[in-house]
């Protein structure tokens, strides 16, 4: 069984990535660094990471609040709201970009025009990563033993204190799992961002767009180099968040 999995993963995922890494080094390590440390690539990377982190914070917060509302609260239309959360997964990303452009661009029916700015990048990324945190926190919240909270309350703790000391620590692993997914996805997203950001080098050009431009101008090795760095960054982020999660759930495993 392990053999089948490894073979599948190799053919489908590992081999392409190996080819990518190979290609990025094709002109030698010196050229790899030249491309990757070029001002444009650095600017794109800074923008990409900054936007991804901001979006992780935003969706981490709002996603948790939304999950809370969906589990603990009750109101008419709640199940509709619950169903709608997954829709960013269902919509092709270019369409997401088009609608955000229509809604928050030059011809906005609500008078908000943030298109072709950095805010637009954050907006597009928020949309496509919205479901992640909600969906990782919901089951945790659902399973959470309310007895602990009630015990804390009966011992005199305020609601906020109960939340802070009982609920939040238990939610944190779930939130972090969601945040990891948000980061991973945000760093690589292109479809929605490319339509609404304007792609101005050094200002609103994210790394994935830079890679696309490199591919289109025939610089496969340069594209691969930037892609490999991006990959490394996502990998590192995933491992980091996984590590934090691991540390936080130590007590669960010790039991």
């Amino acid at each position, binding site marked *: 069984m*392990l053999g089948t999995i490894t073979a599948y993963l190799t053919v489908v995922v590992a081999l392409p990535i190996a080819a990518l890494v190979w290609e990025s080094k094709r002109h030698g390590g010196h050229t790899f660094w030249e491309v990757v440390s070029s001002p444009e690539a650095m600017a794109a990377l800074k923008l990409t990471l900054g936007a991804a982190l901001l979006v992780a914070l935003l969706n981490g917060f709002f996603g948790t609040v939304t999950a809370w*509302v*969906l589990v603990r609260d009750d109101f008419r239309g709640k199940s509709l709201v619950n169903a709608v959360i*997954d829709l960013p997964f269902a919509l092709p990303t*270019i*369409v997401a970009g*088009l*609608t955000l452009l229509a809604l928050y661009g030059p011809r906005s029916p609500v008078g908000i025009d943030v298109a072709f700015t950095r805010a637009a990048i954050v907006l597009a990324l928020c949309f496509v990563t919205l479901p992640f945190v909600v969906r990782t926190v919901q089951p945790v*919240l659902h399973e959470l033993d309310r007895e602990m909270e009630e015990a804390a309350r009966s011992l005199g703790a305020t609601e906020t204190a109960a939340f802070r000391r009982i609920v939040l620590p238990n939610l944190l692993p779930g939130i972090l799992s969601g945040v990891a997914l948000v980061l991973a996805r945000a760093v690589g997203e292109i479809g929605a961002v490319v339509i609404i950001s304007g792609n101005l080098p050094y200002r609103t050009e994210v790394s994935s767009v830079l890679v696309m431009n490199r591919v289109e101008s025939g610089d496969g090795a340069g594209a691969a180099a930037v892609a490999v760095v991006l990959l490394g960054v996502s990998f590192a982020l995933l491992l980091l968040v996984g590590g934090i999660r691991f540390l936080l759930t130590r007590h669960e495993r010790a039991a």
Partner: protein
Amino acid sequence: MLRRHVPRAVALAYLLAILVGPLAMVFWRTFEHGVEPVRAALSDPETLHAFQVTLIVTAIAVPLNTIFGILAGLAIVRRRFPGKGLLNAFIDLPLALSPVVVGLSLYLLYGRTGWFGTWLSEHGVQILFAWPAIVLATVFVSVPFVAREVIPTLRELGDEQEQAATTLGASGWQTFRRITLPSIRWAVIYGVVLTTARCLGEYGAVAIVSGRIAGKTETATLRVEDSYQNFDVQGAYAIALVLATIAVLVLIAMTLIKPKEQTS
């Protein structure tokens, strides 16, 4: 109580701005000029063929990744082996990889000057700019979803029941079919829904490796771009709406067969 209303207001306001607004926009833009342009856009033969391609590719990618996801979940949670963390990270990688990069890597492998290029052209096998490449690209980007749902569920469940079954004399297959599989059913189903949605909406990687040959290797999402490119925003939205509807229908179908106590 004010306390209850504040989080509710915050959540709903955020969802309205970021999610509901844009979705309402999709509907409005699609039907802005009535149903006729939508009907015309959807009955174009190239569009119909594109839907066919998308659905067939999805029908191949979803079972493959479902089987893989279940097997990988079992291996990661139940077995010990070196490199487990690496395997886990590799499964998540497609989520992080930009689709353009996926396309590029497939070029590097199967292109004329790629790793397998010479072998492929000598044997007359066409991977790029034909079905196999579209399938490979779509499978690549949708690898994580089932595994990601199955892994935490298996962790939560523990393996006492399986152990009990084995001591009672059940074979590996019997245990899997009668104990394990039913217990992870909902995780698998949700994973399948996500995988399907991802496959239906895949654009970037397929755009590069499919060759965009109208009526042959165009997928529905490529048709969306094609329509948009040809100033047919109506057609673009119409196709997108159909894709989103299919994904939503799959989601609803899955939700309906979920037992009540499982819903949030």
